[in-house]
Structure formats: C-alpha cells, structure tokens
C-alpha cells in the first residue's frame, strides 16, 4: 500500500461525517431492500412496507399509542421499579450477610430458574388478567437478575475499603450510601440491563395471553383476525419500544457510572 502523497490529515468534521455514513449505510440498504422487495413481490404475510408505514402513521400517531402503548409502558415501568427496589434492597442485605446468602443459595437458584412464562398461568388464576397480574409478573421476572448481581456486587467490595469503614466506625447508612452501593453499582447496572429485556418480553407475553388491551394484545389479535399489515405495524412499535427503552437505560447508566468509566480508562492508560 502506498501512503497518500503529502500530509493529508482528515479534519475532525469529515471524519465524523464518514463515521455516520459508515454506520448508516447498512440499515438504509436493508430498509430499502425491504421496501422494494415487499412492493415487487407482495404476499399475504409480508405486505408492502409502504402499506405498513401508512397504517403505522394512522394507528400509532397517536390514537393507539394512547390506548394501547401507554398502559403497557406504565405497567412495565411499575413492575420494573418494584423489581429494582426489591432486588437492590434484598440483594444488599444478603450480600452483607454471607452466612444468610450461603444458606439461601440453593433455594434462590431453584426459584429463579423458573421461566417467567411458566408462572404466568398461576398469576392469571390468582390475579386475573388485569394490570395487577402484569405488574406482578414483570416485577417477579425482572427481580432475579437484579438480586443476584447485587449480591455479587456487594460481596466483591474491596476488603480494604470494608476494613477501613469498620475501623472508622462509619455508620451503616453512610457505609451503604458512600461505599457499598457505589462499588456495587456497575454490577447492579448490568443485572438491571438484563432485567429490562426480560421485562419487555414478559409484558408482551402477559398481554398476548390476557385479553384486555396493551400492545401485545393488539399484535396478537391482529394476527388472529389476519389483519397482517396492522400486525406488522404493531411489531414495528414493539421494536421501537425496545430500542428506546434500551437507549434511555444506556444514557442513565453512562451518567450514573461516569466516574467508573473514567476510572477504568484511566487505569488502563496508566497501566500501559
């Protein structure tokens, strides 16, 4: 390879434009392919993308967004918040008492291995198909990854830090807020991230079975009545929902863990 003649250094701006272009070409090509192929060869199950997008505009901006999407999101947020509170709270407690967590370990491992869908029938019988059931199901399903990661995170707090805190007799409240929880937070976040995708799966599943509204119910009933373009529009909404939730989560994580990322890059740089 021959180096370009003369000192050719791309400017910051042109590099950024190039980066955006490199990331964007594949999605654009894929969507264009979908558009062309579905227009050229329309079939019952894959209607033209144009038609789907037209329905998407008609249905989801913003009539059904209010009636079908909003309740789902509210249930999701409620259940997820409950799971976070319970998971971090109990996880911290168990993480601080190694004896307790050791004794409970096999039982916890067994209970958390129940796939969320398998307890769905129990919740339907006990709580009906209303919002209570959905919130409970999400809370229970999303609880386990957060709990286990919190226990692990709390237990792996630097022993020196723990000893220092003990010898200065720092009160429990300050020890939790300023030592234990910050040290455990990277791991708590990675548990919470797994929980988020579990929660999205569970809200959709619970709505596909329970029969009173929600985005999952919309998609499932569109499928049952062979309203294929409507079904696809709902699937697009679900995809966007997943992406938006994940992006929000990432922004929050970057903000809360800014100190952590800063520290790891610095130690890596200094280590070289």
């Amino acid at each position, binding site marked *: 390879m021959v180096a370009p003649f003369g000192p050719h250094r791309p400017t910051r701006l042109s590099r950024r434009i190039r980066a955006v272009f490199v990331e964007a070409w*594949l999605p654009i090509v894929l969507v264009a392919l979908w558009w062309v192929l579905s227009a050229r060869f329309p079939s019952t199950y894959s209607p033209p993308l144009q038609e789907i997008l037209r329905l998407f505009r008609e249905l989801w901006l913003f009539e059904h967004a209010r009636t079908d999407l909003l309740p789902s999101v509210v249930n999701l947020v409620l259940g997820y918040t409950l799971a976070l509170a319970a998971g971090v709270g109990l996880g911290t407690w168990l993480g601080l008492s190694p004896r307790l967590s050791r004794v409970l370990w096999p039982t916890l491992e067994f209970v958390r291995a129940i796939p969320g869908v398998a307890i769905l029938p129990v919740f339907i019988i006990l709580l009906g198909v209303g919002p209570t059931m959905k919130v409970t199901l999400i809370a229970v399903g999303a609880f386990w990854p957060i709990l286990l990661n919190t226990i692990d995170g709390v237990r792996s707090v630097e022993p020196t830090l723990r000893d220092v805190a003990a010898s200065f007799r720092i009160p429990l409240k300050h020890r939790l807020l300023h030592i234990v929880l910050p040290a455990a937070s990277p791991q708590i976040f*990675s548990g919470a991230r797994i929980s988020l995708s579990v929660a999205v799966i569970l809200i*959709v599943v619970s709505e*596909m079975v329970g029969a009173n509204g929600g985005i999952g119910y919309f998609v499932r009933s569109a499928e049952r009545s062979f309203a294929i373009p409507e079904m696809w529009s709902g699937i697009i909404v679900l995809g966007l929902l997943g992406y938006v939730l994940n992006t929000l989560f990432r922004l929050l994580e970057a903000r809360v863990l800014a100190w952590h990322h800063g520290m790891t890059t610095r130690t890596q740089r200094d280590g070289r």
Partner: protein
Amino acid sequence: MTSRASPFARAGLALPQKPRRAGGLRGLIEQAGVALACLLAWHLLVAWQWVPSSGVSAPGPALARWGELLLTSAYWQVLGHTLGGWFIGMAISVLVAVPLGVAIGLSRFLSDSTRFTIDFLRTVPPVALLPVVLLLLGPTLTMKVTLIVVGTLWPMLIQSIYAASQIDPVLRDAAQSFRLSRSHRIRFLLLPSVAPFVATGLRIAATVSLLLSVTGEYIGGAPGLGAALGSAELAGNLPEMYAYILTAATLGVAINIGFIVLQRQLLWWHPSVRIAPRG
C-alpha cells in the same frame, strides 16, 4: 471508537461466585433445612387458606403428581420436545453467530457498519415476532426454533464481535512475525481469545432460549413443556400444573449448572476461572 462496548462482557465474564462451602456437611444441612422450611411455608400457606386454593396447589399433591408423571413416557416426550427445540435453536445460533461475529470483529469497517443495525435488532423483543412465525410456520418445532434463533443470535453475535476486537495486539503481532500458519493462528490465537466471551454469550443465551422455548409452546401451542402446562391449566389440574412448573425450574437449574461446569472444564486456563473469587 475502536472497541464496541459489549453490554454483557464486563460483568458476565466472571463466573457467578460460588459460595464457599464453609462447614462442609453442616453447610449442606443448613441449606437443605432452608429449602425444607420453604416447602413447609408453602404447605402452610395453602393449608391455612392464606392464598386461594383455587390457584395454588399444596406441595404434597404437586410432588406426588410429579412422581407419577416421571414414570410416564408422555412426560419424557414433552421434555424431549422442549429440550430438542432448545438445543437445535442454540446450535444454529452458535454456528451462525460465532464465525460471523469473529469475521465482523476482525474488520474495522464491518464492525463500524453493523454497529447500529445489530444494536437495533438486539433490542427488538423476540416475542414480537411470535405472531409472524406462528402465521408462517404454525405450532411446530420449526416455529419454536426460529423464535429461539431470533432471540439468541444477537447476544451471541455481540459477544463474538467484542471478543474478536479484543484480541491482544501484541499476541497478534507475535503470531504474524512467527509466521504462524492459518490453522495454528486459529488454534492458538483466535480460539483462546474468543472462547471466554462466547462462553458468557452461551450462558446468557441458554436462559433466554429456555424462556423462548416455553413461550413458543405455551402461547404458540408447539408441543412441549409450555403446551403441557397450558393444557393442565385448562383442565384445572392444579397439581399437574405445578408439577410442570417444578419441571421447568429443574430444567433451568440443570442448564445453569451444566454451563458453569462446562465453562470450568473448558476454560480452566482462563483467569476468570483460575482465580478463585473473593468470598
């Protein structure tokens, strides 16, 4: 921005800490005691009518029914359907995702180009596609496998891309200057660098895969554990329903333990396994 942040790699690489077995036999007895106490609490909750007996079976009948089921061939067929779908789906995911991910991860252009697309597709909840695959394929094994592949492909792919982009440059240069042959480079450079990350991806995918398998059966009606659970529910046969729930949990535990053991066996040389975590 050369490295792609893997959402799983950081925390996932470390194996879950195994609580130390302090006290050996005594520890074991205590653990069993807690498990028995939970069973007893379950029994009392039902016996004292603190939970409606219309929805919760007592543990006795459930365990008894489970024992009976264990002796029927239908039960093992159900289990075979679920595990079969689980295995085929995982196998396809691995066979597609690992080579593809490594190829993408080794090329700067490819990993930049695919970043957004993969990031977007990863966040699409796999059950969103359940209606589509149901319409196209009906309540069959193929439907279930498709669902599993759609759900597990992305975590595997991301882990593999991340793994390939993390290969130590010093090692890579060394391999080049020694002119290692292609097969040796794969055997001694690529595989050891990629394997730990793929193992983490596998562990995550294994759980997701079981969840999706049961979902495809319960909602989609493909034969297997979920369908058996659904029909026990419809028949109002509570003990049988709970027997199948317990089965699902046992399966989940077995898969978890299986993968941890596998990881310890295959990656015994890797620091995440070698260095015992602090207890």
